[in-house]
């Protein structure tokens, strides 16, 4: 059947899809032409198409310095920490929540743990400031009460991978534990009944039934996370660290780096080269790890 015949036959349906399709073309596909700038010297007057080609010069500039190693390492390292700790801790939280017998306490606890998911990173950043600030921050006052010296957290770049991981876990533990709780609830009660007859304690049931049955979904989420490992959470990092250059050695990720190149330095071509590098590496990662997910469980793969 020809193209026009198909369109005419289902014209109503294609009309329904039209706004969404237009959106994708304009806001997702047209901006992809921005990648061209990675190979050009952008001149505002001439626009994307009129600017002269410079081949790989922008990439040479980016790859010559040490910045690219730094931001690539930070991106991978931070995302790695986020994936590992958030999944393990939220799986544990889900298991513990599932064991709680007091209905009201369970519901209340779950609601509170889910709450951080609903606030913006800027609000989080103010909370972080209230806790870590030198002088009047909660944590430092606590340290002083204990007789320990104050720590200038906002100048201690070495501590930030840990701090950001804690914040990430705090924000997403509720989100992931909902997913885990759903799959724990899906585990057939036959297993537990049989185990109980065999005299297994609740702890043994967790170790030998819940955790093994939860493992596939944890692995799946981890693989999907690894697939997106080249993309940092810009809102998180920029919201919390902002333009605090002291922390860049451990917190600057590809997204924040390209943002600064664009917005603060006004260097479109440089920023485009960084973003192009990120998109290509990201694409490779997603395709590879999606392939792995597909091998394990076809239904969970992205495509």
């Amino acid at each position, binding site marked *: 059947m020809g193209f026009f015949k198909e369109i005419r036959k*289902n014209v*109503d*349906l294609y*009309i*329904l*899809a039209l706004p*969404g*399709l237009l*959106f*994708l073309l*304009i806001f*997702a*596909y*047209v*901006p*992809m032409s*921005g*990648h061209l*700038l990675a190979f050009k010297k952008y001149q505002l007057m001439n626009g994307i198409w009129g600017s002269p080609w410079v081949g790989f010069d922008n990439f040479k500039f980016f790859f010559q310095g040490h910045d690219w190693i730094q931001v690539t390492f930070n991106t991978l390292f931070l995302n790695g920490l986020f994936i590992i700790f958030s999944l393990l801790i939220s799986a544990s*939280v889900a298991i513990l929540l599932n*064991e*709680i*017998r007091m209905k009201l*306490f369970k519901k209340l*606890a779950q*609601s509170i*743990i889910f709450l*951080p998911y*609903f*606030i*913006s990173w*800027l609000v989080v950043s*103010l*909370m972080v400031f*209230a*806790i870590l*600030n030198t*002088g*009047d*921050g*909660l944590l430092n006052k606590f340290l002083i009460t204990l007789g320990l010296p104050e720590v200038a957290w906002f100048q201690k770049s070495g501590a930030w991978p840990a701090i950001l991981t804690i914040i990430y876990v*705090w924000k997403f*533990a509720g*989100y992931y534990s909902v997913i885990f709780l*759903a799959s724990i609830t899906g585990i057939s009660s036959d297993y537990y009944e049989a185990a109980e007859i065999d005299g297994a304690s609740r702890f043994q049931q967790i170790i030998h039934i819940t955790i093994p049955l939860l493992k596939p979904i944890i692995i799946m989420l981890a693989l*999907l996370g690894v697939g997106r490992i080249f993309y940092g959470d810009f*809102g998180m990092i920029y*919201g919390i660290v902002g333009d605090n250059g002291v922390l860049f050695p451990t917190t600057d990720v590809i*997204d924040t780096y*390209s943002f600064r190149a*664009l917005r603060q330095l006004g260097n479109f071509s440089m*920023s*485009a080269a960084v973003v192009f590098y*990120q*998109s290509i590496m*990201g*694409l490779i990662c997603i395709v590879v790890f999606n392939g792995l997910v597909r091998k394990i469980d076809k239904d*969970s793969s*992205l*495509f």
Partner: protein
Amino acid sequence: MREKTFGMGMNLIVLLFALFCFVPFWLVFIDSFASEASFMAHGYQLLPSALTLDAYKFILQGDQIFRSYRVSILVTIIGTALSVIITAMYAYVIANRKVKYRNILSFLTYFTMVFGAGLVGFYILIANWLHLKDSVWALILPYLLNPFYAFILVSFYRTLPYEINESATIDGAREIRIFFKIILPITAPAIATITLFYALQYWNDWWLSLLFIDNYKLHPLQMMIRQLISNLNVSSYVSGSSTSYSVSAPTNVVQMATVCLTIGPIVLVYPFVQKYFVRGLTVGAIKG
């Protein structure tokens, strides 16, 4: 006996973790009522020595909070309404077996998830081609269709029996009518779920306003918080030039009161909508 200690231990761990999640909220909430003097003397406290409404009075006296609320509400309502309808229509077509090109549409959608356009092209599109700088549309248009949410809906639609569509077609209803009169009503729970996801995204976004909104009159609430955090001159931003310079603005306390005002609506609605989020997460399962 050991079982009991074990159960108690688990309750205790959950309790501690819940406290860990809750303390930052409490801190911001209670310190927004701290008096400036108490804050100056003691800094952030879990229980300030003197509680007042000064910070709230200070914010509400100015225009910015009302402007920002208006922008945030406007963007959230228009954005959510448009994106939900566009996403629902689009997802319905992808899920519909009659459509020959549904796989192509589906691939076009997936591809945007795996290959980013990147900041530069996006920025040039909005700022230079569409000329949306300092326009509320810059805060609305970029989020109209989220592929993740579209695919959540697709999987909902696929669970519907195909006969619904067939019998309606035999009765002579056209597809557009079928969608609005039959499909939308019966998928209301799914629609409610993605409505909440979109609303949350619009309400909490500050990236778009950071990139495209320089005019402070169009700052949404999140951007207002950002200005308060980074801006040294709080009094002129919040109250305009009418503030007398002899009174120093209670900076930190004002920041916290503003935060409470922006998350207030979420925290209040949250208990009622939580189950929809849970449903959306578990159906979209891993794909989120």
